[in-house]
């Protein structure tokens, strides 16, 4: 196989002296799909930008070693000379789209290259066809869904007919529907067009199914490399590096640890199902009586009551975001609010905290109409942490950032200081209290944003997509924090599309679709209802699907985690 990309002993230092990449040696064959995994800050983005020459041509720094992209060293060429052959797609679909229609967005690069008009249109057609946006030519990119926007960005990169695509966490801002759309587009590009793809990604369950090879970066160094079935079954390594092991791989690894002999650990659901079938058929494992520890928690009185709430955005045309929504939340509950982007989750949250006023219906907090409270009174009762922590950080230090809200709600200086110290300790940011908020990592900034709301001691805490843009460790850290607060008595509402987190942390879910609540009940119940999840564009965790495939052998259909599945099995010695 001819090599498309060769990286030799490549190291990179940013101007402030931070070394982002260390002695990277990596080749990519033509037609290969290589996925780079690693924590936030491991050097994934730097690697992507180095390959297309944006580093060091636009973002300078010190380099050692060499990169060879189809015979060219990116350092010696203008960025556009490299990106003619390598398309780049970035994480945030919003900021890489800058024209007013799908077609003009797609043709932008080809127009810049001065290609003949007919050829440009032909290429645009081809690119839109591949990403499945044919017929959207005249649409305004603003009106596309997240997945569509990211597919548009891919089409815009394809129009120069590159030999290779580089994608930096292309699904990190997307919901499960968007993620599936983007990844299946990449699969199609690889299989039908023979495209070489270099992608960075966290979602290990999804990438196992499309990647040819996986590279793991840690502190700028390649620490593991190989086929998905090798790398993603090295559960100890993944756990040590705080990366998410694929659930199927993790399940089989646990089985192996318990003495079940397995030649090769499966990582995809299909492989997993067929191995499971064999294990049951040969009687190597059998189902054991298992009841999940769902001791009924006693909740307090009703704290939030939503009755027949409707909300419509007065745009042209108007968008009905909430359609007759009703539910009740009791004190001490941990509720997940799930559904695809645009299903009305965020609008509902904003109504709950009074940022938006419903067109009709009632939202009561302990019996009092929420819209009658002032901003200050609301802040003391219900806290909402919005998605992007950077939209609120402005103080010169972590401490001041927390004091801001406390002063706004009119506390005495002593009380401000007391609560500030208490909450900093609670979220584990004590040692950073004098740092500038932007010196913190993204995960810690998120914690700071949560802390600044929690400090006001609201009775209810709502978190809107707390895991967006976070790596595996960040996701769990923030959810552990929520759980801890819940155990201390705070009522938690978590809006998310991270199904494994919903399964692990929440006791009850509201499933939303098209502005309506289509399911309201125990989490375990929701994951049994495939029809409901499908309607909401969601999928149960893979381990739940695997367990369900074994229902003939007496396995419960509502298994939510690897641990539960393992606990419902028994190993038999087979002679």
């Amino acid at each position, binding site marked *: 196989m001819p090599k498309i990309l060769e990286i030799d002993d490549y190291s990179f230092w940013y101007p402030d002296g931070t070394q982002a990449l260390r002695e990277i040696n990596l080749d990519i064959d033509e037609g290969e799909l290589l996925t780079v995994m690693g924590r936030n800050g491991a050097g994934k983005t730097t690697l992507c*930008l180095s390959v297309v020459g*944006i580093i060091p041509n*636009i973002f300078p720094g010190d380099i050692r070693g060499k990169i060879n992209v189809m015979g060219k060293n990116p350092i010696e060429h*203008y*960025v*556009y000379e490299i*990106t*003619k052959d390598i*398309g*780049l797609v*970035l994480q*945030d679909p*919003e*900021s*890489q*789209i*800058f*024209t*007013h229609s799908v077609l*003009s967005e797609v*043709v932008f*690069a080809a*127009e*810049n*290259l*001065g*290609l*003949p*008009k007919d050829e*440009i249109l032909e290429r645009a057609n081809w690119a839109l066809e591949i990403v499945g946006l044919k017929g959207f030519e*005249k649409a305004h990119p*603003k009106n596309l869904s997240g997945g569509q926007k990211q597919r548009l*960005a891919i089409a815009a*990169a394809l129009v*120069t007919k590159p030999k290779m695509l580089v994608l930096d966490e292309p699904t990190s801002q997307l919901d499960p529907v968007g993620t599936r759309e983007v990844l299946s587009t990449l699969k199609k590009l690889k299989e039908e067009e023979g495209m070489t793809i270099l992608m960075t990604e966290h979602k290990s369950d999804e990438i196992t199914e499309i990647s040819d090879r996986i590279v793991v970066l840690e502190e700028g160094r390649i620490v593991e490399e190989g086929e998905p079935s090798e790398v993603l079954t090295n559960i100890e390594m993944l756990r040590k590096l705080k990366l998410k092991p694929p659930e199927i791989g993790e399940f089989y690894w646990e089985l192996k640890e318990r003495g079940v002999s397995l030649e090769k650990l499966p990582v995809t659901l299909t492989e997993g199902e067929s191995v499971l079938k064999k294990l049951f058929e040969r009687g190597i494992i059998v189902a054991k009586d298992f009841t999940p520890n769902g001791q009924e928690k006693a909740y307090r009185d009703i704290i939030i009551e939503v009755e027949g709430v409707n909300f419509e955005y007065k745009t042209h045309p108007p968008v009905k975001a909430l359609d007759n929504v009703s539910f009740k939340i009791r004190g001490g509950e941990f509720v997940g609010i799930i559904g695809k982007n645009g299903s009305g989750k965020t609008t509902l949250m904003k109504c709950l*905290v009074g*940022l938006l006023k419903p067109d009709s219906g009632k939202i009561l907090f302990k019996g009092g109409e929420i819209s009658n409270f*002032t*901003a*200050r009174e*609301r*802040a*003391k009762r219900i*806290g*909402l*942490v*919005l998605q*992007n922590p*950077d*939209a*609120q*950080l*402005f103080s010169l230090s972590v401490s001041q950032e927390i004091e*801001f*809200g406390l002063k*706004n*709600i009119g506390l005495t200086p002593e009380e401000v200081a007391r609560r500030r110290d208490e909450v900093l300790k609670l979220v584990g940011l004590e040692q950073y209290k004098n740092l500038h908020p*932007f010196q913190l990592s993204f995960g810690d900034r998120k914690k700071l944003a949560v802390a600044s*709301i929690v400090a*006001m001691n609201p009775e209810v805490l709502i978190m809107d997509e707390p895991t967006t843009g976070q790596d595996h460790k960040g996701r769990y850290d923030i959810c552990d924090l929520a759980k801890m607060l819940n155990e201390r008595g705070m009522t938690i509402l978590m809006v998310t599309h991270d199904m494994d987190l919903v399964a692990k942390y929440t006791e009850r879910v509201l499933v939303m679709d098209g502005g309506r609540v289509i399911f309201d009940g125990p989490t375990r119940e929701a994951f049994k209802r495939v029809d409901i999840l499908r309607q909401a564009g969601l999928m149960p965790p893979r381990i739940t699907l695997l367990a369900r495939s074994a229902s003939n052998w007496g396995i419960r259909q509502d298994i939510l985690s690897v641990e539960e599945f393992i606990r419902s099995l028994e190993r038999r010695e087979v002679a």
Partner: protein
Amino acid sequence: MSILAYTPGDSILHKLNPITKLTIIVLIWITSLVSFDMTTFLILLSLLTVFWILGKISLGEMVTIIKLLLLIFLVFTIINGFMYFRGKTPLFYVLGYPFTIEGLLFGITLSLKVLCIVSSIPVLTRTTTISDLIGSFAKMRIPYTLTFILATAINFTDMINEIYQNIRESQLLRGYSIDEMNFLKRIIKGYAPLFTPLILLVLKKASTMDLAIEARAFGASRKRTYISELKFTIYDIVFISIVLVVSITLLMINIIYGKIILILPT
């Protein structure tokens, strides 16, 4: 700034060549800037109202424009009512100072002049996509880098507005409401919690956008291709002709009767 933002549609104004719309605006601007006559401005406003209707721009938005400019109009009228040096006929007195009819008319005329200029802009911006505008600028041999900066800036205003709303909400959630502050408090410390994150986030967005633009071969070829083809049709000729005739007639009349800005009305 939704009053200025492009709204998709297939009205006759949408179909006109952007250069035609640009010419119409320039003609209306020249006529309004040079003239100083209430009738002229009322005629121009009537013409613009017709264009708004043809472009399916809601006339309610004209009211929004007037509301936005109301403070300026009030200031014009009040200052001129009391201070206009040719003011002779008092309408009423405040603390012994006369408010004159001539001053009032001068203020109203000045306000109408501003209204003509401002309300002509949506005729272009509401009915023309940025890429068409860029395409027509290119035809006029304006360098692409310049027009691209303009287009991106227009795009960016939307984005900034969106980011600003997010920030305002985030701070509101911490009990911080700028709307509940008095003017002085707002000026002194009100905006820091809003503008600090705004600047940082906009810089971050701009930097990502810069990457995306570079990665898409911006500035690669001296001869850029434009796929949107802009033709002149009979409608373009009709529209330009109408505005040209109206403008020239009004200008001639005003020059003959001395009703131009250089000579103040007597």
